[in-house]
């Protein structure tokens, strides 16, 4: 039988039972729609988290001090990272390109009658590159200003707005914990990271910070940038051995610091989010399975209802394969049409969710995969009813009431 005729006949028998067809399709619509929406949500979440991590800087490593202790007795403090450590890391680990010491705390900051309380961060000029900041206005302080303990400050955009509103802060003098600082630059906004808002901070030279604001010489952390193609494991190990030597740790002693690797975090997070996405998709996939069972159920009913029609078709010359093809086609059409509607619904829903402050990204490959699965389910669950129809004995089928 000609292919298009078969399709036409299948479409017509589907159209003859519109409500039943629609209800059968609903299973596929919901199944495919939810799979696509869930995968889009999962993918969006992954992209969001990864871009947050990447925004912290490129090839970032950060050394943090760590409490250590045996049997509850603390034998190391968090006051153990020094500028000397930072210099040693830059000098002794060839893959480390840039280093900045970082120390800071919250301080009261005033400009005329405006008052704000924000994180004041002492750092080197390299922080800009290591932490992936850009200057929106003015400039960053330079090495000479760091060496000279200059009273210069670079403001986060929120801090600048809090103190100056719409006025131009460049060249103005602000007061940080009783010290006069000249504003020389404004950072470009990065958006809040949740646990730390990089837009609400003031950067000053670490030397000025140590000697005149904070009154301490140990660091909160050391941020480093690796060469682009460096082997993270190797660089980490080298950093660890440099620091252990400098901290006079013996073999077997626990390290009194911890090195955070952005690369490893990225890998871990993307593994976790991928698993989560798959899990979401699999849960939604169960509804696809249920939809498939619905198709099988309805097709079995249809075959019974149309036993006589099958008998007539066989009597006038339909082969078993003609009958098989006809009923398979009906099942596949239901599942594919349902899949297409479901895909449209899933994409629409994903876009809707996207506008509700979530991130949902539909991937074309996921749409294609979901629809192929829908077609596959139509074939799988449509086969048995169609096979039953094809095997009917024409004499008995013609006699069926």
């Amino acid at each position, binding site marked *: *039988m*000609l292919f298009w*005729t078969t399709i036409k006949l299948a479409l*017509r*028998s589907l159209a*003859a039972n519109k409500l039943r067809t629609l209800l059968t399709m609903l299973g596929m619509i919901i199944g495919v729609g939810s799979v696509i929406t869930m995968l889009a949500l999962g993918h969006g979440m992954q992209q969001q988290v990864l871009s947050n991590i990447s925004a912290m800087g490129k090839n970032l490593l950060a050394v943090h001090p760590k409490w250590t202790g045996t049997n509850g007795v603390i034998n190391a403090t968090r006051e153990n990272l020094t500028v000397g450590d930072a210099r040693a890391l830059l000098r002794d680990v060839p893959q480390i390109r840039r280093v900045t010491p970082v120390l800071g705390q919250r301080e009261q900051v005033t400009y005329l009658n405006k008052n704000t309380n924000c994180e004041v961060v002492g750092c080197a000029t390299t922080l800009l590159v290591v932490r992936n900041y850009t200057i929106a206005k003015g400039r960053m302080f330079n090495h000479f200003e760091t060496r000279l303990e200059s009273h210069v400050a670079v403001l986060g955009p929120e801090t600048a707005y809090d103190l100056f509103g719409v006025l131009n802060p460049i060249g103005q003098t602000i007061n940080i914990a009783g010290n006069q600082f000249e504003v020389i630059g404004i950072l470009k906004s990065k958006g809040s990271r949740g646990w730390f808002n990089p837009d609400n901070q003031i950067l000053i030279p670490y030397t000025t910070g140590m000697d005149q604001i904070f009154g301490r010489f140990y660091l909160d952390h050391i941020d480093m940038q690796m060469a682009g193609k460096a082997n993270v494991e190797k660089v980490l190990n080298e950093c660890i051995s440099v620091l252990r030597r400098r901290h006079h740790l013996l073999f077997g002693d626990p390290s009194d610091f911890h090195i955070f690797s952005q690369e490893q975090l990225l890998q871990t997070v993307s593994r976790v989010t991928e698993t989560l996405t798959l899990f979401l998709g699999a849960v939604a996939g169960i509804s696809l399975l249920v939809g498939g069972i619905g198709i099988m159920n309805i097709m079995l009913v249809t075959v019974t209802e149309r036993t*006589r*029609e099958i*008998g*007539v*078709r*066989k*009597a*006038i*010359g*339909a*082969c*078993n*394969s*003609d009958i098989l093809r006809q009923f398979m086609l009906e099942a596949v059409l239901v599942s594919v049409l349902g899949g297409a509607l479901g895909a449209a619904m899933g994409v629409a829903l994903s876009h809707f969710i996207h506008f509700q402050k979530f991130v949902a990204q539909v991937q074309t490959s996921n749409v294609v995969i979901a629809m192929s699965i829908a077609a596959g389910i139509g074939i799988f669950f449509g086969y048995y009813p169609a096979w039953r129809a094809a095997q009917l004995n*024409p*004499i008995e089928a*013609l006699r069926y009431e």
Partner: protein
Amino acid sequence: MRPVELMTHTTPEPARLQSRAGAVAAAAGPGLIRTHNVVKRYLVGGTEVRALDGVTLTIHEGELVAITGSSGSGKSTLMNILGCLDSPDSGDYFIAGEDVSKLKSDQLARIRNRRIGFVFQSFNLLPRLSSVENVELPLLYAGRHHAAAKAREALEIVGLGDRLDHEPNQLSGGQRQRVAIARAIVTDPAIILADEPTGNLDSRSGDEILKLFETLHQQGRTILIVTHDPDIAAFCPREINMRDGKVLRDGAPAAGLTAHGGD
């Protein structure tokens, strides 16, 4: 006008089949339809029942034959076998010289499609399909082209040229049976098998259907009517009377020309 000839070119056969068919036909002797000692057994409650018990008959091209018998006489079983809906347990069955007694189900479907035209008591048209679509269905299963044009032609032969796009539920019983007859003749089959074709019709429509069979018979078609109605049997030149799975009588109708004498 002989529309039959218009359609004869639509059943081309490969040369190989033709030569083989010719050889078998020579062995089987003349006759469009030949059965030899056909037996069909059924198991009913553990006991074997011979629905057909050695049926041998020959039907020539252009004959109009009635198969009669009471229920249980085996006439339905005979019709199923002659219509290639079923295969005999033993014995031979030739259509136009081709042995069809040992074919598999899909091969039988092909024979039904090309060689047999069925007309049923309850019409058995497919609902929701128009007359033309119902009639072109056998051509579609044969994979033929221009099916719609041939279907229209067949509907004109049965006098339904003005009901082409009507669905079965828009037609009267007599008209439905005409559509069914058009569906039976559209493939230009070797034989038309009609099973109680007037059983569901009032006498007037029934007469019209019989007249249509008469016309088709005059055009040279081979027609077999299975019936228990002696009037219909009397209407046919030849009657095969069945009883207990055997041919009881084969010849001119017993009831003679009395029933149709006044016609």
